[in-house]
């Protein structure tokens, strides 16, 4: 009865097979399989920086040993085979044999709470390190013995050669003893952190104070696999470390870079482009003074570079939506297994009445601009040859007419800037020749959208592009479309949605999303964003379309942004929260026209809702003072 697109992904985690049905291997292949230092992933500390919704948590959950084993054991399922392939590529497995035993530890607020205890930083760090190590040990053993696949005594812990006294400190050599000690440490440290009345430093329980270094002591974990012994590399994944206090994280990170550690250590975090941390950090080399990226640790950014064309995410979106679609009974029962096919991409057409209106409008414009019939014919020829060579199917008469309109206006602007020659006829040549290209086509479509209500956004690619590389955001928008499809199926209609049905559903859903923003300064952010959208729309609807597809962003000089963010001004707060909660996407040091800008792009859902282009690059230049006035007026 429920719509699986709208279920929280974590809900599926409870049920392994349900989770495996929906998790996509894309993030693994995209970010890890091709990394230049792939081989060091399990040796050095790795910092994985992702944007919200980039799938880092799903990925971390997928590689936990329990699921990895489930995947390996059932290769009859094509879904599992795809996941297995990704695991091989990233080094988690060796063909059919596991290589890594991973556990994911979410860094919830309880870890941050340790920083509030009245102890020395060194003591606080040691407590957290003990807690993390204890829980990692418990997690590894739990994963290995999950689903009754093996008993605890079938797990052999192999210590580092020079471990010595550390072995006793971790409880001994057998898995059972080690587990017992880990639980003791977990309980002892937990009780220090959770109590309303923290103990005095000298009263900290012995189990929490005693030296405890399983990350240094343990080298490998050995199990039996299909009758043969197999050595597994342990890996601990700390998720959401950005919730720790910055000082706390720094100390913890340094503790984890100790060379004696043989186990893999991944730290996953998000970094907001406008946060103090990133603003004052010119390049990642300075993240941890004294430590060098690539030498002491690896940095992996789980977001596509701006240069790319978002192809990666579109692949993920396509994969995910197909998987989820299979869980929608009313559609799966009718054998709909490709989500993209339920989103008609057939170019929308204007009614004959509107088409006639368009023809007349263009004719009127021609007269107003005093464009000669010859000039018009030349322009139409440009458009025709563009259409012939274009890959898009969305270039019918309506788009062509609108393109002609744009080009006529451009002609007018260009010749108006030229000094008239005494010898020129009434039909001068523009110095820069007119060109009919994809920009003009995009501009034409925007015009048709706002003038004739022609759908602008439809098809899987548009929804994927509007998701700002956030899987959850994609699923919510796709889910809204699925609801409409189900409604049609209920009425025995073909569930596929036409472009205008898609556009209408998306406008409704994104409107809901925007109205539902609930975070600090949400109201101001909403008003600010809508104001900016209004200005972008105005620019996009300029008849000569100077920005082609139009604008969906504003930009201020990067240096001024740095100043603003350091101030306590309300605008700084509004922008920070807008970016942190996905209302805008901020890009620092964006180079354009010989200058460095801080680009503030409207989030995809805003562009969908306001019917602005999703294409990147068109922005309005502004000054910080302009933005301040906007915010103050709200």
């Amino acid at each position, binding site marked *: 009865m429920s719509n699986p697109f*709208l*279920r929280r992904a974590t809900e599926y985690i409870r049920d392994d097979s349900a989770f495996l049905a929906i998790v996509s291997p894309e993030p693994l292949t995209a970010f890890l399989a091709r990394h230049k230092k792939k081989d060091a992933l399990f040796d050095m500390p790795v910092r994985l920086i992702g944007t919200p919704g980039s799938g880092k948590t799903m990925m971390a959950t997928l590689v936990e040993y329990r699921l990895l084993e489930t995947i390996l054991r059932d290769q009859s399922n094509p879904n599992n085979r795809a996941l297995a392939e990704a695991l091989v590529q990233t080094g988690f497995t060796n063909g059919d044999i596991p290589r890594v035993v991973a556990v994911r530890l979410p860094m919830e*607020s309880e870890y941050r709470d340790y920083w*509030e205890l009245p102890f020395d930083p060194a003591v606080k760090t040691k407590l957290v390190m003990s807690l993390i190590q204890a829980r990692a040990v418990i997690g590894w053993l739990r994963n290995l013995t999950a689903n009754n696949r093996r008993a605890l005594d079938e797990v052999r812990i192999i210590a580092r050669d020079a471990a010595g006294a550390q072995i006793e400190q971790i409880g001994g050599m057998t898995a059972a003893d080690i587990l017992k000690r880990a639980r003791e440490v977990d*309980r002892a440290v937990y009780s220090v952190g959770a109590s309303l009345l923290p103990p005095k430093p000298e009263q900290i329980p012995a189990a929490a104070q005693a030296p405890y270094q399983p990350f240094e002591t343990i080298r490998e974990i050995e199990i039996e696999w299909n009758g043969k012994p197999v050595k597994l590399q342990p890996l601990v994944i700390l998720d959401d470390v950005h919730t720790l206090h910055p000082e706390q994280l720094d100390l913890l990170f340094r503790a984890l870079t100790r060379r004696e550690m043989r186990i893999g250590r991944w730290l996953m975090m998000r970094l907001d482009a406008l946060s103090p941390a990133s603003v004052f950090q010119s390049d990642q080399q300075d993240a941890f003074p004294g430590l060098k990226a690539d030498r002491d640790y690896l940095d992996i950014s789980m977001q596509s570079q701006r240069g790319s064309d978002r192809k990666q995410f579109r692949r993920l979106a396509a994969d995910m939506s197909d998987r989820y679609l299979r869980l929608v009974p009313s559609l799966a029962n009718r054998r709909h297994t490709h989500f993209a096919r339920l989103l008609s991409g057939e170019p929308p057409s204007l009614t004959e009445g509107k088409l006639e209106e368009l023809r007349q409008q263009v004719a009127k414009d021609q007269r107003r601009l005093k464009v000669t019939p010859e000039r018009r014919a030349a322009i139409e020829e440009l458009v025709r040859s563009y259409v012939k060579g274009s890959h898009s199917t969305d270039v019918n008469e309506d788009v062509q007419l609108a393109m002609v309109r744009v080009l006529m206006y451009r002609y007018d602007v260009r010749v108006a800037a030229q000094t008239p020659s005494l010898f020129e006829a009434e039909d001068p040549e523009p110095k820069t020749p007119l060109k009919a290209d994809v920009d003009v086509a995009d501009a034409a479509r925007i015009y048709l959208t706002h003038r004739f209500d022609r759908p602008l956004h439809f098809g899987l690619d548009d929804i994927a592009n509007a998701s700002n590389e956030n899987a959850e955001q994609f699923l919510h928008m796709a889910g809204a479309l699925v609801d409409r499809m189900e409604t049609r199926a209920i009425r025995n209609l073909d569930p596929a949605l036409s472009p205008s049905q898609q556009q209408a559903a998306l406008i409704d859903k994104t409107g809901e999303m925007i109205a*539902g923003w609930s*975070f*600090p300064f949400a109201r101001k952010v909403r008003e600010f964003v809508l104001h900016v959208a209004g200005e972008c729309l105005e620019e996009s609807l300029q008849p000569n379309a100077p920005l082609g597809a139009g604008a969906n962003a504003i930009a201020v000089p990067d240096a001024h942004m740095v100043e603003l963010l350091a101030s306590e001004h309300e605008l700084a707060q509004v922008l920070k929260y807008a970016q942190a909660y996905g209302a805008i996407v901020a890009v620092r040091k964006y180079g354009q026209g010989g200058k460095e800008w801080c680009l503030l792009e409207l989030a995809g859902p805003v562009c969908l809702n306001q019917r602005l282009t999703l294409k990147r690059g068109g922005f309005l230049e502004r000054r910080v003072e302009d933005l301040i006035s906007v915010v103050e007026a709200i």
Partner: protein
Amino acid sequence: MTSRPHWANCITHSDAKVDEFLADYFAQPDRTCLLVGGAGFDPRARMVAERLAPVLGDRLRAMFIREERANPNADLTASANETEAKLKALIKNCEITHVQIFAEDGASVGGVRVSQALRAMDWPDVTDVVLDLSALSVGIGFPAARVLLAQCEERPDVNFHLMVVSNPELDAQIVPEPSSTPAVVRGFSGPVEDSDLEVAKVWLPHLAPGKRATLAKIHGLVESDYKICPVLPFPSRDPRRPDALISEYHNELRNVWNVDQRDLIYVSERNPLDAYRTFSTLKARYDQTMEGIYRPQLILSPVGSKVMAAGALMAAIDHNLTVLHVEAVRYELDSAAAPLEATPAYMIVHVWLHGPIYAGYQA
């Protein structure tokens, strides 16, 4: 199992009976009282003080907590300042404690700070301690209650009272802007894990208007729940309130949380003992059903009516339950709603949690 059998039937009063009780009980000349409450923009902040001060006069002392957050709404700050001034005028022996709710890195630390402040306070020689939860957020009020109750329970002659002024319609007008990080309320992390059994998490979110984003955040922290049992207010002043909430949360109920309709829990909007009893019964039932198979963990998120929250508080303390919560970074007033003064009447509730008056209680 409870060590406080009297809680299922403890002395409570509501509305007019509260006034009668206070006027009678505190008029006794040997009664001295410490009032701990919030001094914020919420108009309910003054109401308990306004009832106690005339009766107790000099026998009343108070500690008011002012919750400090960055970038507050200017109007709300002005209201809070006004409240503080009025409270100071009302009660001579009055201390205002400012508690920073967030640390400089944005982490929620109010609970730690208020616990520290209350423990650092010199315990006064009083016969009664009243904790007014009305204007305190859950992250502050709950730890405060736990600390104060612990201190009172060490002193069998001291009485501990909870008071709540509630107004669900007003609650709907105050819009919290939640922080991005949900957290365990200080002192309410639940029992220490000491068994091999897998944990079966049962999340009990209170549904309240305008709290979808807040509950969505908290839900993120409850990874892989066994079951979600949303809590609805019934009986309620408006009999359609549960239906309106079901409508507002229909996406969560049907899709995101996938709730079975038989798992909806109804709890009185006006009697905190109802919530206490309901959660206590639920805990007992799960303990019994899952014994030896899973370790049940009940997780409360009382984001709505303070009266229901008071009952949740009692259950959480008595049975060591986990309370998850998102602190509000700021508050805004819902501009679309009617002005604060013109809302329906306030409900006031008194719960007498501890004192020599229970010495003869038998279950």
